[in-house]
């Protein structure tokens, strides 16, 4: 019999997917203005002006939902000495030589790095985004600050997009992971193999 372990509750999953959907929409509507090669993406949002109007509101939705998500996951993402050990084996992880990896808790060091990358970039995106937000807020800021903010916003968005590409790929690459966020459960074998310390904690085995 295939046994499963609960990894995420329905609330956690809903929260995650609100963040994910808002991120994709904010990312696409933002990239549309990032470089002419992506301008066609404005069509997904009803044209240039609508893209410009909607993007910051979607961004704010993402920010708020991410704050809730970060609060839920914060305490599982503190770095431990074991994480340093794991990072030394990153090559083994990437080459699927899993037998050489040290034991991992609920999250491995790579997942923690992603968590903290997003924790830093999302507020930066919010602050820099508000400064350049026409027509509501931008008129209250001096032009030199607009120039700084737009560069920071583009840079933070880029870092976050790269991070999420890695995040999504990792979920596809490590088989049995996606269901943690769609169904809420993972197989015992998956937990034992990838997150043994967490597995023991959950099952008492």
């Amino acid at each position, binding site marked *: 019999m*295939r046994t499963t372990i609960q990894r995420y509750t329905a609330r956690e999953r809903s929260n995650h997917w609100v963040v994910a959907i808002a991120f994709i929409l904010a990312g696409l509507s933002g990239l*549309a*203005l*990032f*470089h*002419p*090669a*992506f*301008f066609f993406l*404005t069509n997904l949002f009803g044209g*240039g*002006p609508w*893209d*410009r*109007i909607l993007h910051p509101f979607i961004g704010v939705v993402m920010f708020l939902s991410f704050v809730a998500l970060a609060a839920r996951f914060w305490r599982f993402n503190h770095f431990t000495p074991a994480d340093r050990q794991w990072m030394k084996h990153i090559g083994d992880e*990437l*080459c*699927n030589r*899993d037998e050489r990896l040290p034991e991992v808790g609920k999250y491995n060091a790579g997942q923690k790095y992603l968590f903290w990358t997003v924790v830093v970039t999302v507020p930066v995106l919010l602050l820099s985004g508000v400064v*350049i937000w*026409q*027509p509501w807020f*931008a*008129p209250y800021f001096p*032009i*030199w600050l*607009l*120039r*700084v903010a*737009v*560069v920071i916003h*583009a840079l933070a968005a*880029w870092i976050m*997009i*790269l991070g999420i*590409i*890695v995040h999504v*790929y990792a979920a*596809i*690459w*490590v*088989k*049995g992971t996606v269901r943690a966020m769609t169904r809420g459960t993972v*197989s015992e*074998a*998956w937990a*034992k*193999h*990838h997150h043994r310390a967490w597995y023991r904690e959950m099952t008492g085995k």
Partner: protein
Amino acid sequence: MALQSLDIKARSATTTPPPRARNPVHVAKLIDISKCIGCKACQVACMEWNDLRDEVGTNVGIYDNPRDLSDQSWTVMRFSEVEVEQGRLEWLIRKDGCMHCDDPGCLKACPSPGAIVQYANGIVDFHEEHCIGCGYCLTGCPFNIPRISKKDSKAYKCTLCSDRVAVGLEPACIKTCPTGALVFGSKEDMIHHAEGRIADLKERGYANAALYNPRGVGGTHVMYVLQHGDQPELYANLPKDPHISPLVSLWKGVTKPLMSLGIGLAVFAGFFHFVTVGPKEVEEEETD
């Protein structure tokens, strides 16, 4: 092709070259500040030709009215009372508005294809029907010129009467100026005309009289004759060495193609990792 006078030299958010076969003459407006009496006839002519009506403001104790450029005021006179020499008050009146930079920062910053164009004759024009109201042009402009309308969230500024120039007329402000402080013609002729004026001013004791055609933005298609060419800041903070902010050049330069490449590479790296190393799978019944 459309009117030769409307041939386009540069277009915002466009990465392929514009048509280049024809090469019309470069135009320029010359503003001779030493001849300006501050009558604001040009402001009125601009409103009239372009069908603009700004709000009637209040007197704030100086002659500047309207107080600033807006979607309805594409040119304003800025009055500066300065004592360049002790005890000798001078009233410097500068007609402010778009400088029609040869290297326009507004166009460089704009993300919307065709919202800002530069005609082959040098005029920089906003095509509001393509404007998305993002305000990026504000960050690109070294002269603080574009204004976003509160009514329609589109950016507006002086067109150098591109519609009049296209059919061989001079801009409305030029037509109306009663003192000849404003002249219009080919850029070459205007530089030549300015040289005569500067020689005259130097004879009359303005040793530093000079033409304002700043190199930092590739020269401009609106130029000033300044009595105090060494101190352009005297004229309501006209920048001495304007250039597109390095932040804007960084943001709109090679960075973005490189960053876009980075995103593409990340996706490719994932794909090739999957087809070479393969997925991480676990046996369902793993033994310890």
